[in-house]
């Protein structure tokens, strides 16, 4: 083995990497929030059973789930140019991740809504609750509990998928690493450190969600 590892340039740039890590977290969280909202809408549209609008939700979900995230990213990045829409790298990643998250979350939410028995809604309604009260106090808390674990997983996927931003020129953690690595040719060293940062981010998300779930689902 005649390769000498050089770690110093990596450690000197560690603050830059950590800052880029925050950008990764930011875009992943924002895409997750948008994805949850869109996913809820898609799930409700699909459950509404109206043919005129369900086809839209169904095709969104199936396209999001059956094509690679990278292709979706390229689509938002390069494909939309055909319509004269040119997004900045941040928006490309945000749009593609939100699209993907919404597709996967919609299926989870649909399962969650279906798991709450109809009789409970009827019971709540006959106890005098309004429609909004029924949803807020009876249905949503149960759905949230059912989809909590899949949602945590999706959050992790969101972080991991944001690494694809490198390929459309977004300087999040992976993009920044690639940028710095190509300056020094210390590719292995840089990417190893980045891998560790990703590992820590994912572990923090999983640990945080576990602590939060103890607090949320005590009963």
């Amino acid at each position, binding site marked *: *083995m005649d*390769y000498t590892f050089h770690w110093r340039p990596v450690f000197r740039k560690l603050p830059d990497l950590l800052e880029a890590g925050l950008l990764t977290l930011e875009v992943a969280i924002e895409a997750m929030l948008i994805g949850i909202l869109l996913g809820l809408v898609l799930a409700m549209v699909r459950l509404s059973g109206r043919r005129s609008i369900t086809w839209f939700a169904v095709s969104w979900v*199936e*396209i999001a*789930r*059956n*094509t*690679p*995230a*990278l*292709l979706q990213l*390229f*689509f938002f990045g*390069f*494909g*939309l*140019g*055909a*319509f004269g829409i040119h997004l900045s790298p941040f928006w490309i990643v945000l749009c593609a991740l939100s699209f993907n998250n919404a597709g996967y979350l919609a299926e989870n939410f649909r399962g969650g809504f279906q798991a709450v028995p109809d009789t409970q809604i009827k019971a709540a309604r006959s106890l005098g609750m309004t429609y909004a009260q029924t949803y807020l106090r009876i249905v949503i808390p149960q759905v949230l509990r059912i989809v909590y674990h899949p949602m945590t997983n999706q959050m*992790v996927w969101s972080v*991991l*998928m944001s*690494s*694809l931003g*490198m*390929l459309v020129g977004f300087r999040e953690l*992976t993009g920044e*690493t690639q940028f710095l690595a190509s300056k020094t040719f210390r*590719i*292995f060293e840089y*990417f*190893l450190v*980045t*891998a560790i940062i*990703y*590992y820590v981010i*994912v*572990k923090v998300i999983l640990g945080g969600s576990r602590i939060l779930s103890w607090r949320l689902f005590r009963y």
Partner: protein
Amino acid sequence: MYELAQSIRFFSDFQASDLAFLAEAAGRTLLISVLSVSVGTVLGCVFGWLLSVSRWAGAVTLGLILDAFRSIPLIIQLILFFNFFPIIGFPVNPFAAGTFVLVFYTSALVASVARGGIEAVPITTRRAARSLGMTYWQDMRYIVWPIGLRAVLPAWAGVALGVLKDSALVSVLGYVELLRASQILVTRTQEPFLILTVVGAFYFALSFPISRATASLERRWQK
């Protein structure tokens, strides 16, 4: 000079022969995914079994390693290993590096699925099998395998589909699979929308039948 400039066109439109090029690339996507999923599944089952039987020291060590494959973006794993092999003196081609990473990535995902399958079999059922005189491996083969398989086949199919889609990332290393082929065509034709749509249709055609088949299988088994 003028006539030459007229006769040479740097960009040409999407042609029928390009579809053949894409189909060939789709074949490569299928090849690398099938290879990774089949080898990765076998490895993953072994890892899953190890996880379910080993005492905590073994489970923690193996669990940590497999966890790393699940918590680090695939693109970084690919770049890391592609650059790591030359360091230890074995320069590899993109296909080999991509397959290597995808195999371990798959096995890490399958390991937790397989472990779940083994743990889905009630311990009382297994004790009953053992007290009927079955050996450990007979119990594994005739009791745990059929029951566990039913419990986790949908999850396994999810992993397989995920790897099929994630194999697009091997394009980063330079292996000409479906997505890389699309980039090549985009560069030539300057029509990203059309080509990405066609490639999307290719991926959809590969992935959608499998996901439908699993969903219907799952529904039939639930009855």
